[in-house]
């Protein structure tokens, strides 16, 4: 226990009181930060869940369409048709600051041509076109999903950290300092009383000897 090592002096008492004040203020601030982070987090996470379900449904239907195309055209031909993409996709990233947590915002761009189908229509079937359409439909949601899921991850770890700090202050640091302060005040009062008693005793003895 920290109280054992503390010297019961007035200077130590002033120091501890100042520290307690800082700790209380820090605790209040961190608590506010945690609450606000939590509010933002819950807002984002609700949307994220829906988005995730939406994307998974979209991808599975695209995959089914691709499987249908494979069965019509044969797997090797599908591979051959898709092997050389007509365009490249890149993304711009800007940073948004949520309560001092930096989260990414993506903005994707397709380069070269906007042509989606990297193949001629002669050797391919309509099923493949349908599969590509579905895939490109779901793609912007997929990007949105990356953004929200990353945000959720970053916020979750920040909330965890903040909550740990709040709890450490609330349940360890602050009570510890309070007991130390109490210990010092009591010790000082005790010293005062013993000095007073000694003085009274001395005075009595001096008077008797006269």
């Amino acid at each position: 226990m920290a109280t054992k090592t503390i010297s019961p002096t007035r200077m130590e008492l002033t120091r501890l009181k100042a520290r307690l004040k800082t700790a209380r203020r820090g605790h209040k601030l961190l608590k506010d930060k945690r609450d606000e982070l939590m509010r933002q987090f819950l807002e984002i996470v609700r949307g994220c869940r829906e988005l995730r379900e939406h994307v998974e449904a979209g991808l599975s239907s695209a995959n089914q369409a691709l499987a249908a195309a494979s069965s019509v055209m044969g797997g090797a031909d599908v591979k051959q048709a898709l092997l050389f993409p007509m365009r490249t996709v890149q993304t711009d990233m800007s940073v948004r600051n949520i309560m001092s947590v930096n989260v990414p915002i993506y903005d994707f761009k397709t380069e070269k041509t906007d042509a989606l189908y990297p193949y001629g229509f002669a050797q391919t079937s309509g099923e493949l076109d349908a599969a590509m359409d579905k895939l490109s439909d779901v793609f912007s949601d997929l990007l949105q999903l990356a953004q929200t899921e990353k945000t959720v991850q970053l916020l979750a770890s920040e909330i965890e950290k903040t909550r740990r700090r709040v709890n450490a202050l609330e349940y360890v640091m602050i009570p510890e300092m309070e007991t130390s302060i109490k210990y010092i005040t009591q010790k000082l009062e005790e010293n005062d009383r013993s000095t007073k008693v000694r003085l009274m005793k001395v005075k009595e003895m001096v008077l008797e000897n006269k």
Partner: protein
Amino acid sequence: MYKIGVIGSSDTVLGFRALGLNTFAADTEDEARRTLREITAEGGGYAIIYIEEHLHTALAKDIAEFADKITPAIIAVPGRGGSTGKSLRSLEDAVLRAVGSNIF
């Protein structure tokens, strides 16, 4: 400008390749790990890496390294075999970690 990568079995990445993403076929766990290391190395320039669900599970430790960094975002996507529901569960885990209880 940042690049977008996809790691998955060769069947899964096929469609994404046609969309214009940078795809990396990886049929085994080791292959996927090596690819991930390569493209996340310094100056890789990837902002988002989509990775097939079963590989995402297998590489959980490697992926955890990037959890606190802003790039790259490593996101699990269902493969050709369909969704396993694992990603939704990991979302719930994140909520559980942050909030302390499951609110869904």
